[in-house]
């Protein structure tokens, strides 16, 4: 019967092409606007590493005096000091963990072949790659020995490799970062994440870095940070070493905890570490305070998806509702004009539920067409969003789930709008129309 209803729906579409096209356009505009805002929202809110987002935890320490306030909701800073980061990075614990920060260089080949360009870099440990699932195209991360000796080695991204070496295996080759020669030890494949969740302090939707160098180079090369630096007390800082020993907060720290026992064990370790630091006089604190948040908690804590985005999605659905009200009126007029035919069908044995089903299939078909055209309009809308600011280049796109959601939302919306007209027409008293037709 469903195929027959589809056939009837298509005939009905062709019988009143103008009204049908008008309805499809109305749905398409509503869906186009809704899917534009919903797609951006979806990409912002999407779990960036779903298979292990519950295992990766951002580490926050309140290595501060009692009474000192911070602007976060739980009063704990989002970054940690260099000395805490390095200690926790180097200490032997049975968990993957990585400290990192953002810096940057002028990249060149010391020749006129490649125009020098500025590029941000992530200074981190070799654990960063397996923890955040960065796949290697060539080579791998630096060795422990290279880390310990602060060797000038670098892992570059596929796009940089393409730019500098035409995409060939560049492992073992050299590149200049500022004035220093670095040896390439690995090339990572394109890292496609929409939210830079591992460092939300420096723009949640900024591009990921294209250069990765060992953490030990911070001290060895006195690297400047390209990220945010915060502090909670006045300190006289005149040298780089004083900066490293200070209470300034500019490092990010992540740990991979596979279960509740790991989380408990690492939490106990942090508790003891902070108590020890307080005992050593770094800060005056009665009870240690820290936080371990998994990826999704971390994104929510940092308000990656702002209230404005939610409001925009709400408004777009409101617009869709306005479109649906118009469609409802058009459907009502179209269906009630058909009452005499329904009277005949009822007389010939159609039940109310069969008539209702027939009309719901028809509105679903309109919704499907509207959804398909709506995807086109949404693509235009997303193109418009992307062209306003490069920030949106990775966000203003439709993934497969949104592509499937568009016709689904359109069909469900039309079913909601069409249910009343379909119900009214299925309640048609056949006797009224059979004599007067």
């Amino acid at each position, binding site marked *: 019967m469903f195929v027959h209803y589809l056939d009837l729906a298509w005939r009905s579409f062709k*019988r009143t092409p103008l009204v049908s096209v008008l309805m499809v356009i109305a749905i398409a505009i509503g869906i186009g606007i809704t899917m534009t805002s919903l797609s951006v929202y979806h990409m912002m809110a999407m779990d960036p590493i779903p298979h292990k987002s519950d295992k990766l935890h951002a580490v926050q320490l309140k290595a501060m005096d009692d009474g000192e306030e911070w602007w976060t909701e739980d009063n704990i800073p989002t970054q940690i000091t260099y000395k805490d980061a390095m200690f926790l990075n180097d200490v032997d614990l049975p968990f993957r963990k990585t400290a990192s920060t953002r810096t940057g260089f002028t990249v060149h080949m010391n020749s006129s072949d490649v125009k020098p360009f500025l590029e941000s870099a992530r200074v981190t440990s070799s654990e960063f790659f397996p923890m955040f699932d960065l796949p290697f195209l060539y080579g791998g991360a630096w060795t422990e020995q290279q880390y310990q000796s602060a060797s000038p080695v670098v892992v570059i991204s596929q796009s940089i490799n393409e730019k500098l070496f035409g995409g060939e295996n560049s492992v073992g080759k050299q590149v200049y970062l500022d004035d220093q020669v670095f040896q390439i030890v690995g090339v990572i494949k394109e890292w496609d994440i929409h939210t830079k969740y591992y460092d939300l302090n420096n723009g949640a939707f900024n591009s990921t870095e294209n250069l990765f160098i060992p953490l030990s180079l911070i001290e060895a090369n006195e690297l400047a940070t390209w990220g945010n630096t915060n502090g909670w007390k006045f300190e006289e800082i005149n040298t780089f070493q004083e900066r490293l020993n200070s209470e300034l907060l500019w490092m990010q720290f992540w740990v991979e905890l596979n279960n509740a026992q790991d989380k408990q064990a690492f939490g106990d370790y942090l508790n003891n570490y902070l108590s020890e630091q307080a005992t050593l006089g770094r800060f005056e604190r009665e009870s240690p305070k820290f936080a371990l948040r998994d990826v999704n908690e971390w994104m929510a804590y940092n308000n990656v998806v702002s209230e404005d985005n939610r409001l925009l999605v709400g408004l777009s659905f409101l617009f869709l509702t306005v479109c649906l009200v118009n469609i409802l009126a058009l459907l009502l007029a179209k269906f009630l004009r058909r009452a005499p035919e329904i009277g005949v069908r009822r007389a*010939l044995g159609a039940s109310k539920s069969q008539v209702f089903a027939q009309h719901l299939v028809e509105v679903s078909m309109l919704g499907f067409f509207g959804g398909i055209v709506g995807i086109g309009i949404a693509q235009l809308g997303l193109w418009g969003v992307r062209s306003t600011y490069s920030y949106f280049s990775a966000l203003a796109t439709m993934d497969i789930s949104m592509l499937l959601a568009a016709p689904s939302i359109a069909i469900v919306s039309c079913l909601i709008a069409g249910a009343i007209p379909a119900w009214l027409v299925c309640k048609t008293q056949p006797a009224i129309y059979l004599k007067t037709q």
Partner: protein
Amino acid sequence: MLSMKNISKVYQTEKVRTHALRDFDLQVNEGEFIAVTGPSGSGKTTFLNIAGMLEGYSSGEYLLDDVNVGQLSDNQRADLRNQKIGFIFQGFNLIPDLNLYENVEVPLRYRGIKSAERKRRIEECLEKVGLGSRAKHLPQQLSGGQQQRVAIARALAGQPRFLLADEPTGNLDSLMARQVMELLEEINRDGATIVMVTHDPELARRAPRNIQVVDGQLADFTLYQSREKDILTPNPQLNPSSNPAEA
């Protein structure tokens, strides 16, 4: 086959209460061909609508093949209507977007009959009404008489035991009307029970049994034993003023 006892139908508006049928009693046996006559507004069509379960009734009891229609849900009534009743309307009531084949197919689809069986029945019924070669035509491409024959084919396709015809020749010229009537008589001979509302005394005379509806009641009930009689015979008990000798 059909049994109506004390059936009443009241249309109620804010100020007016209209009795379309009152205490209507009728027994129709299997294989009968009944003509229902009466003045306009007397309740003939209301009776036919109630008989076809297209309309409910206010009180009384209606049994169709011993099934109490008043106790059925809408879906059950639709099923019963689909399986046992065929309709022929004065205005043909063909669906204009569907060709003849598809029009005849409508009741069969609602009955859930398989495609091959549908095809067999449709072709057989269209052949029976002499329109087998026009299956792909649209209704508006046919004359009134042809359209009514399609409507009859549609009514027959479901192989109903009970055929309700509301002025089936009302929109046809006399030649076409005769052809349609002959078709109905043939269908009756094949075993279907037919109840036909008509204003045409000539057609009514051809039916073996006549009933007359006046003011929503069964006013006259005469069983014609023979087709030789060529005018309606009033019942002297119900109409004492009439003169049987004139018959």
